[in-house]
């Protein structure tokens, strides 16, 4: 049942079962404590007088991959969570290009309820370095146009030319 604005009680009136069910039972069932199921979950507004439990999830892959593709390819890690229309995503890795002054790039795509291709607009990249000299850093992006539901966030990689290595790859998603 949805939330109902709590009634104002008047001295002398009889409280009915229907009123208690609406204003006590049903409203309590809309609170965060009623919706809590899993340790570590947070609560966000899902609309007027409505809250939802949301997850903060992560995935880490230690191993190294070598990328030669110039378009974003799917190589993980991935995180799947239930979201509203927004999610705050952090993603990073240790990356190096094997040719001087060439850029390795990493971004995030979304699939499932929503389809958003990985894009340079929110990529992490490093350029202008000597061959095989790495950085390890992270980028963040707020996705604001998701379709509510189960969404999968996937780290993807590309190069402009040549080849690059990516390792110790971590993806953190705060579902909103």
């Amino acid at each position, binding site marked *: 049942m949805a939330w109902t604005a709590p009634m104002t009680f008047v001295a002398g009136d009889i*409280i009915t079962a229907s009123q208690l069910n609406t204003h006590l039972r049903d409203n309590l069932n809309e609170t965060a404590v009623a919706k809590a199921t*899993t340790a570590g979950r947070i609560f966000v507004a899902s609309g007027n007088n409505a809250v939802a439990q949301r997850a903060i999830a992560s995935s880490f892959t230690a191993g190294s991959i070598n990328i030669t593709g110039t378009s974003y390819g799917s190589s993980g890690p991935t995180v799947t969570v239930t979201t509203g229309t927004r999610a705050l995503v952090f993603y990073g890795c240790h990356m190096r290009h094997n040719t001087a002054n060439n850029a390795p790039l990493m971004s995030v795509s979304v699939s499932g309820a929503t389809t958003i291709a990985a894009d340079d607009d929110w990529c992490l990249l490093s350029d202008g370095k000597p061959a095989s000299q790495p950085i390890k*850093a992270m980028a963040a992006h707020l996705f604001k146009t998701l379709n509510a539901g189960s969404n999968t966030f996937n780290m993807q990689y590309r190069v402009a030319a040549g080849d690059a290595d990516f390792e110790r790859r971590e993806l953190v998603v705060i579902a909103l």
Partner: protein
Amino acid sequence: MAWTTPMTFTGGSVLTSAQLNTHLRDNLLESEVAKADILGSLIVATGTNSLVERQIVKATINTGIDTTATSFTSEDGPEVSLETGTRALCLFGVWGANSVANTWLQASVAVTGASSITSDADLNEFAVEIDGNTADNPHRFGQVHLFTTLTAGLNTFEMQYRTQANTATFYRRELVVIGL
């Protein structure tokens, strides 16, 4: 008192004080508004029908430190301590440079107290790493890490540092921890 699934009231029944105490008083005392105490804190689930208030804490040190340590070493922090469940979201950043070109330096976060996450292998996984620079030329980078295997309780998060070789300098060190 713990949460009790709100009862369904039936017309003609007598409403007792015990019912109001259980289903109204005690349940309201388990709600987020009853748990809220500190401005800016988060309310998180600790399990089924159970909430707790968690803090977001920060420590910043803008002065520089030098280290020649090749294993992660405790310098002067920054450091924060807070109550957590089994998870915490950690955000940290640092400005760093090495005295010799193309020599890496790392900053990471160790956890002590209720938990122990202190080995070089563990901290290496989510460290900020700066490499491939001209000598004494810095970068300032950040990192985010979700700790998922903490022991619930009072945990201390401390930035630690190491270098591949030579002398690494770290400035403008910031650590933010969100207890979950």
